[in-house]
């Protein structure tokens, strides 16, 4: 037995479908097969939940074993020879049979089921079975369309009893709301009387459910998934940086699912984050510049903006800009030649134990990137509060508010508005058309939401991740990095990083020595832990 530890991982060589592969000891066959691009279908298995071994669809043939083994519960062994459906008729038949068994009592709900088009049962059926039903009997009936919590709705008949949802509530949140009552083919998901599925991560069970037995209430019946475009993004809700997949149709977010990232969020998401994406797309939207509260042309507004920057500056930055934007801003401000101080709107949040399982105690997704870029340092919350206080006391002369959430909503009180009104030079980049700030600021440029950009984020643990664009920005708005570049150009300052959208991130990575060797494609595979 080798010692545990990343440097002492014993490797095991085995054959799957005749192909030799060498993988770390301790891997199960599903994970091992994945490394060589072989899919072993599975419903009940999840890398971050206990092994249940009840669906039986991951059965494989292992040489020397008289019966088929389930891949999820079989660890790699030196010299093992494994045969999947690709090379074993017995395995293919067994998998087809499991699908047939699941389908005999499964309701013909595809036409009305939200899971359709992204349903593992559908996908596997077409891949591994695709035969007509031989079932002539009456199906078992169970509960239909029953809300079991504020965010999740249950269809008992669709359930395949994989127990992923139960294991999640038992092992991860430890709230134990769910159980499978009954016996035999009458088993059904149930909660106890008076109880709801209301832990802070409750929506995760709808992600975990391989079929449409548990689906999201807020998005029920809103669209077919094939009409939507999906983007692999990072949730901007807090500095945990949960990986997610966001589906958008006609500019509306229609589904948010967690993405697997063992180092960040496993495959979980909190309800606040998941169902709260809308708050990053304010309505109505600011799509034209404002000067003294009235609409203006870009060129005029930009000139005014340039004026504001000529003098000492108090800079408020939003906590959800991209790393590239923080870097650009830092470079710009340092080359500008003015006295300036930068604060980030960080406010600590109190969380209960359940929330703290996944949520970070802040609403600041990317504050670490601002630190990495050298833009801010030290006690962020104290600095932010102090600077706000200075504004309130009328001690601010030049104020730059960079990003919609650079000032927290709860902080925009009358004193702050007065203080800003009294300052001689004020400018902002905002995205909401209804910000109270607009009326007291000298010039406002229409910026974009984090969801409308693609780029890098650093989460609270220092992990560098890449987020893709989720929605198209409204016409008339510009991303913050573009605005910085434009302003720099107006001052004749050449910034180190290109302002071309398609190469923003690549250029940044190339020019940042601390991130040497990293590329977007590398970072898209789960991110990289940084030490700083």
């Amino acid at each position: 037995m080798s010692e545990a530890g990343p440097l002492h991982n014993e490797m095991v060589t085995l054959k799957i479908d005749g192909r030799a592969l060498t993988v770390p000891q301790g891997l199960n066959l599903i994970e091992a097969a994945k490394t060589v691009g072989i899919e072993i279908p599975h419903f009940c298995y999840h890398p971050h939940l206990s092994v249940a071994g009840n669906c039986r669809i991951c059965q494989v043939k292992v040489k020397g074993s008289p019966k088929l083994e389930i891949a999820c519960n079989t660890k790699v062994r030196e010299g093992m020879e494994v045969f999947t459906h690709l090379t074993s008729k017995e395995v293919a038949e067994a998998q087809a049979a499991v699908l047939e068994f699941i389908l005999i009592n499964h309701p013909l709900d595809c036409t009305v089921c939200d899971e359709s088009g992204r349903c593992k049962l559908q996908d596997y059926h077409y891949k591994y079975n695709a035969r007509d039903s031989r079932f002539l009997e009456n199906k078992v009936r169970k509960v239909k369309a029953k809300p079991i919590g504020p965010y999740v709705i249950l269809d008992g008949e669709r359930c395949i009893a994989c127990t992923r949802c139960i294991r999640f509530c038992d092992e991860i949140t430890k709230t134990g709301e769910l159980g499978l009552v009954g016996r035999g083919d009458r088993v059904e998901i149930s909660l106890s009387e008076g109880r709801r599925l209301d832990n802070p991560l409750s929506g995760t069970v709808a992600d975990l459910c391989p079929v449409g037995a548990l689906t999201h209430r807020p998005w029920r019946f809103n669209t077919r998934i094939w009409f939507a475009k999906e983007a692999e993004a990072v949730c901007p809700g807090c500095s945990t940086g949960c990986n997610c997949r966001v589906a958008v149709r006609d500019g509306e977010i229609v589904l948010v699912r967690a993405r697997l990232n063992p180092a960040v969020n496993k495959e979980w998401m909190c309800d606040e984050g998941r169902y709260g994406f809308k708050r990053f797309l304010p309505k109505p939207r600011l799509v034209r510049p404002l000067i003294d509260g009235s609409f203006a042309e870009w060129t005029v507004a930009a000139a005014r903006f340039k004026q504001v920057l000529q003098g000492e500056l108090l800079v408020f930055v939003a906590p959800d800009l991209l790393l590239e934007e923080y870097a650009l801003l830092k470079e710009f401000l340092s080359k500008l030649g003015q006295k300036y101080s930068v604060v980030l709107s960080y406010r600590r949040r109190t969380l209960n134990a359940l929330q703290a399982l996944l949520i970070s105690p802040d609403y600041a997704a990317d504050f670490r990137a601002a630190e990495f870029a050298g833009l801010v340092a030290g006690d962020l919350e104290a600095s932010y509060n102090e600077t706000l206080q200075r504004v309130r006391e009328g001690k601010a002369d030049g104020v730059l508010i960079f990003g919609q959430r650079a000032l927290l909503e709860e902080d925009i009180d009358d004193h702050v508005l007065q203080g800003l009104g009294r300052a001689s030079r004020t400018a902002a980049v905002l995205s909401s058309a209804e910000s109270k700030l607009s009326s007291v600021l000298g010039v406002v440029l229409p910026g974009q939401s984090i969801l409308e950009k693609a780029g890098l984020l650093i989460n609270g643990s220092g992990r560098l991740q890449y987020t893709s664009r989720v929605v198209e920005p409204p016409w008339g708005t510009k991303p913050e990095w573009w605005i910085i570049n434009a302003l720099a150009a107006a001052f004749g300052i050449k910034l180190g990083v290109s302002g071309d959208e398609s190469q923003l991130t690549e250029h940044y990575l190339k020019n940042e020595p601390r991130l040497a060797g990293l590329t977007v494609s590398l970072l898209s595979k789960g991110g990289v832990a940084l030490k700083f």
Partner: protein
Amino acid sequence: MGNHRQILLANIKEADQHTLAGYESRGGYSVIRRVLGMEPLKAIEEVKKSGLRGRGGAGFPTGVKWSYVPRNSRKPVYVVQNADEGEPGTFKDRLLLERDPHLCIEGMLICAWAVQSRRSFIYMRGEYCFPYMRVNQALADCYRAGYLGDNIFGSGFSHHMTLHRGAGAYICGEETALLESLEGKKGQPRLKPPFFPALAGLYGCPTVVNNTETLAACVRVFELGAEAYAQIGTAKSKGTKLISAAGHINRPGVYEIELGYPLERFIAEECGGVWHGRKLKAVLVGGSSFPVLRADELAGVNLDYESLQAAGSALGSGALIVMDETTDMLAAACNIARFYAHESCGQCTPCREGAGWVAKIFDRLAAGRGVVGDIELIESVCGQIAGHTICAFGDAVALAAQGFIRKFPEEFKARIKGAGKHLPNGAEDVSRLKGV
């Protein structure tokens, strides 16, 4: 009861055998006293030498099972007596528990000493209330006598035994499901690996689960000596077995026979032959979990592990269900299929859905709505349940159903629409056996 050597049932007819005084008056608890002076490993060797095999159904060599328990385990070692007798046709453990509870306790103490367990449980099916009271009393008497507790028989070895009542679930007779149930969860069998009871059993600790009859037999193994015990029976089936004989016979009941006794003779003599002077049609041996045997398949078949296995059946729990010529095999198949559908725990896909499916097809056949392809469908479905499940329950579903349709194909074919009536004795709706 013929000339069978009565080892387990030696004292079963004594009116006070269930009392401590009665038990001891006939030599009870003298064996454990002696065993407590033996090296535990030697005790395991004795059981191995005796060739004793599990009497609950699986027939696994008992001594070998005990030897799997790690020596010097830092975790406590548990012994659990499987008194969840639920296999259809089986009622022999009940006899022991009711009439000779101390034999069951003494046997368990022998096992406990051998594997160095200080804590054991008797898991008794919930329906057995009268036996429960008997064992309850027996345990209380043992504690009072110092035969259980902190210093049993003055040996310095401590052992505590708890009687636990089940709540009506056949699957809890499966050893890992039993452990789950004992831990306070649903009786759903565990995955093996990694949950082999000897290594990760009750509360994740090394555990031996043995059937009541097996543990009772242990007393006799040490009483007679392993060699003498191994003289009884056949090459691979040592000792005696309690056979629960039921169905269409004149003398149903529990019989103790030397393993290897011819089956047909057993039915004819011990059981008094088929009742009402009728002809034998079929027998289910070992419970409902193995293929039925036709009357014409019984020649040369003996009541032991190897002979029955060779005949395509198994000794199993030692149940024997006899069916006479009036029995409609479709009705029998419906009955058993419905049993499995009802008792399936529902954990894994093939059994959960398949057991229900098979029962529904049989019911449809019985209701006269069978269609061409139904028999083949049952075969196919069963073929995809067997070997693909977490536990042997799935295999039982398949073996039982396949047994009926393979051994009596004509009766099932006759139920396919348009195939013409072919019903024995003019019976009509046959989903339910008429019995008498």
